[in-house]
């Protein structure tokens, strides 16, 4: 049986079609989910794609959090269903408190759009099992509210529990506020995220959020020709087949 991966569309979501395509390229069935529907159509996993849901009004992800579809997703995520939040989807996951911390305006105040080098810090999540610990990948990054922030004790806890899943990598990734700036060739911390954090997971490892965009790097024909993003989607398929 083909695994069913739901892709949520909020008003203002941009990357739902690319995400559906990535799911299909990985070999699963992509199931469109509408923000007003509580029903998840028996999907096995959910992706919250990027964009500007509700125009980023109030705060990025703050209003989407209260949509009917999120009520069911929060419930299911707590019961172990794999959930991936990409960019705006990551912001929604922090607003729902499924993931700790919050996203702030980039410290350089630029909208940063570039291929971004990342280090996969752990393969022990539902969405990173097909990578190896410490593997470096490169996928597109595009946002202005991408500066990950959390209290020091929360950051310590994330590190101690192995829940920092992705870090911005390459020369210049020194965690310094100001980062490497938007034009530094895809290396280093693009936005002042604390401890170079690009993505994190919940304690169980089924909920993962990150700012860069794996769904834009799944086919050699487009973008930089790299398919480093495909591993996210094949990872969750393996997990679902094994379950």
């Amino acid at each position, binding site marked *: 049986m083909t695994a069913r991966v739901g892709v949520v569309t909020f008003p203002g979501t941009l990357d739902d079609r690319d995400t559906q395509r990535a799911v299909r390229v990985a070999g699963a069935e992509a199931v469109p989910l509408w923000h007003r529907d509580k029903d998840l159509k028996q999907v096995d996993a959910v992706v919250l794609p990027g964009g500007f849901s509700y125009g980023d009004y*109030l705060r990025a992800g703050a209003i989407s959090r209260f949509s009917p579809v999120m009520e069911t997703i929060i419930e299911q995520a707590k019961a172990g269903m794999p959930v991936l939040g990409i960019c705006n989807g990551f912001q929604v996951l922090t607003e729902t408190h499924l993931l*700790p911390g919050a996203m702030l*305006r980039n410290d350089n105040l630029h909208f940063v759009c570039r291929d971004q080098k990342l280090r996969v810090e752990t393969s022990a999540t539902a969405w990173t099992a097909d990578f190896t610990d410490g593997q470096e990948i490169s996928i597109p990054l595009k946002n202005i509210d991408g500066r990950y*922030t959390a209290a020091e004790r929360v950051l310590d806890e994330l590190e101690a529990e192995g829940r920092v899943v992705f870090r911005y990598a390459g020369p210049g990734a020194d965690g310094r506020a100001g980062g490497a700036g938007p034009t530094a060739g895809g290396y280093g911390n693009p936005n002042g995220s604390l401890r170079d954090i690009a993505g994190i997971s919940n304690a169980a490892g089924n909920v993962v959020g990150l700012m860069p965009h794996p769904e834009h790097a799944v086919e050699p024909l487009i973008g930089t020709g790299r398919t480093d993003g495909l591993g996210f989607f094949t990872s969750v398929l393996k997990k679902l087949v094994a379950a």
Partner: protein
Amino acid sequence: MARVVVDVMLKPEILDPQGQAVQRALPRLGFDGISDVRQGKRFELEVEGPVDDAALARIREMAETFLANTVIEDFAVKVES
């Protein structure tokens, strides 16, 4: 009708690059003597019915769960007029 104002500000320890950009622009415009700027949000709520303790408690709950993200922001509730 009474108005209740909710002010939301980034916590003091959170870097506010927008406020910094405003502060740095001030001397160029001839406004001297401002050592720091923090930028926040102000919500003006027109309340139906009396603003009693119960109504204020609901507004505080609204501010805490929705208007502010208390991971990064503080809020203050004030009754006007």
